[in-house]
């Protein structure tokens, strides 16, 4: 426990959680959505490794069990849930058509003799863009789920990740609304809370998590967090250079509301478009103030009751 134990940049959350100096380095995911092909190999590989049940469409946030189309295009998963630790979001949108014409294609402008541009002027034209992104538990530096867990089921591991200990969880459900990203959930019929473990068992065996192992296009990259952060900076710079100015990193900033994510992303649009909160804050940041307010209110109660007896009359 140190200076920024509750909030703010924290270099080594494992050490902060009592692991000795010899603990392994912090690992995480860098999910580069610019190369995601939406194949959902991550979802399947995760479920196969972790022996998770199929849960159909996660019904509006709470894990559902309906095997049917969700009406959300190619996303029939819906969201992360107690049996879904990876979720590929599909975002269809209309964007100005000039994007690919001028930036992506390395070619001269279209002034070929005789070339007739049909249709509308490209300046006003739009085209369809289809973004895909594999969401996962963020393994926050300051993890609200972990903080609020009353049983110590949720812990920080030696790898700097956040883990639900299945043998401890009593299903109180507190972690669920605590998570600013809506990751963790209660599994119906089981009662306990579940979320991505970053394949804790595989990490122990020196393997990568199942999703990163499967990912065909290296959209999901696993590794020491520092290394991933550097790689992400490079990738961002190179995309910006190619004119993909909409690229941005998400969860990468250690000064953000959760002290930076252990699983961060390169996105091509605003986070909320992918179902991510634009400016998440660990709720426990305000906990000291909450306790102070609660204490003041409790004292008010005590004072009110006490004062009521002061009159002494019956």
């Amino acid at each position: 426990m140190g200076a920024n134990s509750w909030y703010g940049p924290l270099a080594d959350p494992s050490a902060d959680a009592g692991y000795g100096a010899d603990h392994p380095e912090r690992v995480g995911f860098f999910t580069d959505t610019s190369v995601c092909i939406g194949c959902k190999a991550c979802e399947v590989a995760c479920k196969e490794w972790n022996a998770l049940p199929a849960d159909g469409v996660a019904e509006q946030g709470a894990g559902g069990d309906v095997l049917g189309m969700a009406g959300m295009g190619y996303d029939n998963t819906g969201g992360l849930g107690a049996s879904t630790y990876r979720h590929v979001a599909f975002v269809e949108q209309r964007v100005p058509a000039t994007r690919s014409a001028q930036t992506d294609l390395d070619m001269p402008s279209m002034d070929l003799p005789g070339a007739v541009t049909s249709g509308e002027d490209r300046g006003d034209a739009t085209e369809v863009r289809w973004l895909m992104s594999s969401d996962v538990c963020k393994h926050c530096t300051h993890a609200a789920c972990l903080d609020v867990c009353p049983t110590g089921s949720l812990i920080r591991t030696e790898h700097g990740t956040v883990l639900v200990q299945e043998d401890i969880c009593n299903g109180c459900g507190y972690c669920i609304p605590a998570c600013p990203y809506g990751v963790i959930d209660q599994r119906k019929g089981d009662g306990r809370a579940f979320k991505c473990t970053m394949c804790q068992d595989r990490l122990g065996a020196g393997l990568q998590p199942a999703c990163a192992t499967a990912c065909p296009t290296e959209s999901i990259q696993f590794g020491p967090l520092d290394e991933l952060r550097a790689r992400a900076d490079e990738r961002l710079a190179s995309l910006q250079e190619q004119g993909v100015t909409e690229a941005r990193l998400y969860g990468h900033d250690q000064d953000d509301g959760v002290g930076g994510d252990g699983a961060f992303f390169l996105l091509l649009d605003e986070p909320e478009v992918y179902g991510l909160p634009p400016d998440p804050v660990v709720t426990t940041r305000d906990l000291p103030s909450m306790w102070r307010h609660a204490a003041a209110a409790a004292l008010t109660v005590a004072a009110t009751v006490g004062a009521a007896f002061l009159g002494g009359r019956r």
Partner: protein
Amino acid sequence: MNSDCIVIQGSNMAEAHPVGFQWVMEAKRRGATVIHVDPRFTRTSAVADLHVPIRAGTDIALLGGLIRHVIETGTYFEDYMRSYTNAPMLVGEDFRDTEDLDGVFSGYDPETGSYDVLSWQYEGAEVEASAGFRDERTMVQEHEHAEIAGSGGAPFSGTPSRDDTLQHPRCVFQVLRRHYARYTPETVEQVCGIDQDTFHRLAEALTSNSGRERTAAFCYAVGWTHHTVGVQYIRAASILQSLLGNIGRPGGGILALRGHASIQGSTDIPTLFDLLPGYIPMPHAHQDQDLDTFIEFNAGNKGFWGHMDTYLVSLLKAWFGDAATADNDFCFDHLPRLTGNHSSFPTVMAQARGEVPGYFVIGENPAVGTANSKQQRLGLANLEWLVVRDLNMIETATFWKDGPEIETGELRTEDIGTEVFFLPAANHTEKDGTFTNTQRLLQWHHKAVEPPGDCRSDLWFYYELGKRLKARLADSTDPSDRPLQDLTWDYPVEIGPTGIAEPSAEAVLREINGTDADGDALSSYLEMKADGTTSGGCWIYTGVYADEVNQSARRRPGGEQDLLALEWGWAWPMNRRVLYNRASADPEGRPWSERKKLIWWDGERWTGPDVPDFPVNLSPDHRPEREDAGAESIAGDEPFVMQSDGRAWLYAPAGLLDGPMPAHYEPQESPVPNVLYPKHRANPAREEFARPENPYNPPGDHFPYVFTTFRVTEHHTAGGMSRWTPHLNELFPEMFLEVSPELAAERGLVNNDWAHVVTTRSAVEGRVVVTERAKPLRVADGSGGTRVIHQIGVPWHWGPNGLATGDAANELLSVALDPNVHIMETKAATCDIRPGRRPRGPDLVAFLADRRRAAGLEE
């Protein structure tokens, strides 16, 4: 990976081959341009630099437009084209083009709907396979694999006249130029619905990334092959790539992305009616044809096909062993003879007529997986016996119990006389064997566990069946039983821990590889002999067991090797990875450029990171003394070693049944006329089948929309391997239909509600996915105006059995085939779409009859 521009057309690579697609993404990261040409905006389009929406079934118009663009703008790779293609060859005087004959080439017989191909040949050369024998020229399954297309170049003899200045009006280059003169950007826009701006961006990306320093590649899949002009789609791409100099060079080529673990192997060692292993044709019926005349008809004079006699004799020795002798033509007469098209669809129709009593269906699910599934099921219902071997209880095994015709009342279970044996199969973890992947790479998979219960490998099943057949016929004196009696069938057997006596797959692979007179494994097909001293079951696979080592099981980690990874598995032929790689060097044997070098002549031999696809000591200045000595008669600057003239063909003087050059024809069912050749809407040489179960949608307003079938990455083909897996089914739990917002508005379709697609064959229902990815296209209507074409995407993974069930897309399709390879058209057809669920039970039959009547098909 090495490409500078990758055009994916007729393939949804990111979805159907995600792991292969990593190399495309790798190339893109390094700056390559990725273009996706497809009727649908798919996950491939999503990561491409440019998506070009195209009307389904018009790819030849686009490719023809690109060919014209390349010729007219002079952006072809001139040195390559002059030296390595048949551009200078002169075409005979009798040839007439589609431009001269209103949409057909010379030699067309409207009576039979077929061509006499004699007039297409070169001047001064004789194409040996004449029309009468054309079935014998069954060539390589070019539709499925472009790299090997050359392997089957039709043989001819003599030296064709040529004009190296390319000025002669009858030289291939000029013929080609005239043929495509009308394929202008305007035409492309009118036919394909691709605006001219987009066309120019595509053309520019392609041409600016081709030539000496750069290469571009095409990737295709069944989006090209499943058409009534499918072979010509690939031919069109071959012409374009040959003009641009993108064949036989790193980062170039035309890559067929095949859909099944060993679909390549299934054509190499074919379970196909018209082929023997190694693309040797099955013999046809003749009054008296012996081995020599067969070889004479079919073998080439030049190139590696010149040694077909050694391949065939070795094959016969492998099959009939000591019984095969020079005196009895090595049992050549044991081979059954063909008399026509015995491919799948005619067989199904014969079954429906009750003419085929027995049927083996092995790891395949035609009851939902074959076009016009109902016709297929009627075939199944008219068998005497059916053997189904599969991992899951597929529809083909249960059609008699719960097939759609039972629901509609068209069939009654009690009336179906088919005896059904369902034998559970072993999966790939339960058996040894090789798969041949889409890059011709043989990879061994080892057995990990024993199959449970009655599950057995197909190897076990056929070995057992063969053993029992041989035992039962051991004493027969009937001459028709001689082939089975003579058949070599002594494979070593390994008894597993659960007592299963499994024949050794390695022993079979070794037989395929072949052995020499001493019984040692051959290391190359060059060692095969026609005198009966060598044997070998599939000449192109010879070398896979070289040095008595199972080369396909080699697994030196990729990380320890260069990108070609020659020590991982084994690629046919001879473990070379890029076919025709001699073309990566100029005629003098120097790499065209440092950036794109692959093999080169070092003064004594061909060298480089790949295995040369060329006689390794044949110097670039070698000129053959004789024209008919097989590999020895190749000139040192003729890279296309499987072709009779060593060149890539811009014009096919022989070998194709529907034209020497691709021409645009509309699909069998199209909402618009053929703008280019108004007199011939569809391929005049296509195979049609007029049967009550196989009606074709007439043109007109009754079926105003186009649909195209497709796969999603979460499912596999007709679902036999994916519909029983919870983790896949939850990802795409129901049949769905992809439509544009415009079509949804026009027909009142609501996202995630039901709709049904209707053809004259059937109606199938699915959840509506309304998406802006689906884009209506504006094309010429053939009478001077334009009209909007709506295209509906119909995935084909579902059926009545399994976890996630739904209607099968194949119910909708008709059977109309490409004449060269008898492949059906699934990628473009017409339909109607309506909101709500389809009629069920007998109502469906009545509904469809109504629709046919309305369309004028039934009175």
